[in-house]
């Protein structure tokens, strides 16, 4: 009789604790969601008012109000393009090696450690390394190329992981079918497995692009903190005023936000920072949605009963 009573008491207490814990968890979780969404909303809310076609295309002003972010936006996009041009082939190769060629053993473990360490390096350290090796030793100067190479180092481990996972996700029956048909291993990788891996490769690559797009610390001392006056009618890559000259310095949007915040003296510096931050966040949002959308569409395209080439 009394043990039942004790049990009931314990149960009641357990239930009360449960309720309290649930309330706490929900409160904390809601607090997080509120904080994050609030901050994000704040950025967009404050910045959106400042975004206009003029803001997106005109050149920045140091002393006067009314400057834009045109060159910075272009630099960010062009630098992203250059970075991916270098990173994707390297990351694909190394990722394919890890998933298809590496045999379990000391060497493979070592490469895995390398990828893990490289992906945890602070980006400022990668920036310093870029300054020392690319800018000074290789004499590339503060340039798009130095920046792209530094971002390659920053992004490569992620690209390797994305590739490795995408290939690991290909059903092994696909590989077997290729083997039994007498295809070479490389032919199987490029013609049988790669098309199956493409949706997750694209998704991963676009998400990685978002990360590259917003990176600043690795670029301060590689791509530089200034942009020469650009002539958007000059597409000769060797001309110093050409926007596509890879050896010119190029301040990106993220770097510009940092610079405006720490040393901006234009009267509307805060609004410019807000507008530029909003643009950056919107770009990351676009990358994110694009990644999900493309990944899903491509997968459906491959498996659906629709005409394909």
């Amino acid at each position, binding site marked *: 009789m009394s043990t039942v009573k004790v049990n009931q008491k314990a149960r009641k207490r*357990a239930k009360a*604790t*449960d309720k309290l*814990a*649930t309330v706490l*968890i*929900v409160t*904390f*979780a809601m*607090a*997080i*969601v509120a904080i994050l969404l609030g*901050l994000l909303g*704040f*950025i967009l809310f404050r910045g959106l008012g400042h975004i206009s076609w003029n803001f997106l295309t005109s050149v920045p002003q140091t002393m006067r109000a009314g400057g834009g972010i045109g060159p910075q936006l272009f630099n960010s996009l062009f630098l992203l393009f250059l970075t991916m041009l270098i990173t994707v*082939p*390297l*990351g*694909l*190769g*190394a990722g394919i*090696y890890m998933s298809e*060629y590496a045999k379990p053993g000391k060497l493979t473990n070592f*490469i895995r*450690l390398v990828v*893990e*360490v*490289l992906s*945890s*390096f*602070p*980006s*400022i*350290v990668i920036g*310093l*390394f870029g*300054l*020392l090796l690319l800018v000074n030793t290789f004499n590339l100067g503060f340039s798009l190329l130095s920046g792209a190479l530094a971002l390659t*180092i920053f992004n490569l481990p992620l690209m390797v992981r994305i590739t490795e996972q995408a290939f690991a996700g290909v059903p092994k029956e696909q590989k077997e079918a290729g083997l039994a048909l007498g295809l*070479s291993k490389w*032919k199987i*990788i490029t013609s049988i497995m790669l098309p199956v891996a493409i949706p997750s490769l694209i998704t991963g690559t676009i*998400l990685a692009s978002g990360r590259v797009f*917003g990176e*600043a*610390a690795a670029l*301060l*001392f590689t791509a530089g903190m200034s942009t020469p006056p650009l002539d958007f009618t000059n597409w000769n890559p060797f001309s110093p005023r050409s926007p596509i000259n890879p050896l010119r310095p190029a301040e990106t949007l993220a770097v510009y*936000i*940092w610079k405006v*915040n720490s040393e901006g003296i234009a009267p509307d510096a*805060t609004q410019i*920072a*807000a507008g530029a*931050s909003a643009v950056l*966040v919107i770009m*990351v*949002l676009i990358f*994110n949605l694009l990644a*999900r959308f493309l990944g899903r569409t491509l997968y459906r395209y491959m498996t659906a009963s629709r005409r394909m080439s």
Partner: protein
Amino acid sequence: MEQSNTTPREARRRAWPMEKHRVEDWIGRIYTSICVVFLIAVIISIVYFVTSKGVATFAVNGVSLKEFFLGTNWNPQADTPSFGALPFITGSFMVTLLAALIASPLSISAALFMTEIVPSFGKRILQPAIELLSGIPSVVYGFIGLSVIVPFLREHVGGQGIGIGAGALVLSIMILPTITSVAADALASLPRGLREASYALGATRWQTIYRVVLPTVMPALLTGIVLGMARAFGEALAVQMVIGNSPHIPTSLLESASTLTSVITLGMGNTAMGSIQNNALWSMALVLMLMTFVFVLIIRLLERRNRL
């Protein structure tokens, strides 16, 4: 038989001539190997250059290890320069630990909420939202800190607003998504039967979480926290924007301070390559790199425990 007067090699070549599939496999092997060699070359050269530059402060410029790691006076431009980096090392550790202290309970609650309380909603809506937030650039977090957190602290708490507390808050917001998504992944990968067995015994949800779920995923949760700390420790710009950048050990959370990363960020552009002032910054980069190794080591140890 008829092949008896030819060597086995010739017979083989006649039967299976050298063909494109061999060439293809060579191309594949060489291409992928070059990429891996590049990867290894990169890490080796980073480690080599950062180490050799970072050691130069002590080996070439004769700054003592004791002064660098224990000295509290940083004044590299003075006539008799001093290179005490302790304030920055302390600053880095303080913001990192504070950020982890603030972010961990919140993140783990969020992960529990997503996986244990509203699993389907969590998976469909919250998980993508968290992933999105982890992609927000750090300069944006720095700007948020500068335009929201700093004014808030100034008006409601006191002081200048900028300082070690603001730095820790910005970093904690930045690492929330990191810890949350690692924790949520770990919780979601638990076998369903584990929880059901506990519920079947009459345990409440909290009892199940507290006694069964959390102990099982503890190593993974710690991994998430360490990953977040590694990110916080290495973050440069977001912290630099809000911490105040004064070179001394703060005595209160509202006091201006510096971290290793913020000093490098501000100093690297103003010092000549090869000078003692510049080398001292490289020594800080070396400390950052060594801490990266420590974080990776801890994560590896935790993962090993997780597998057992």
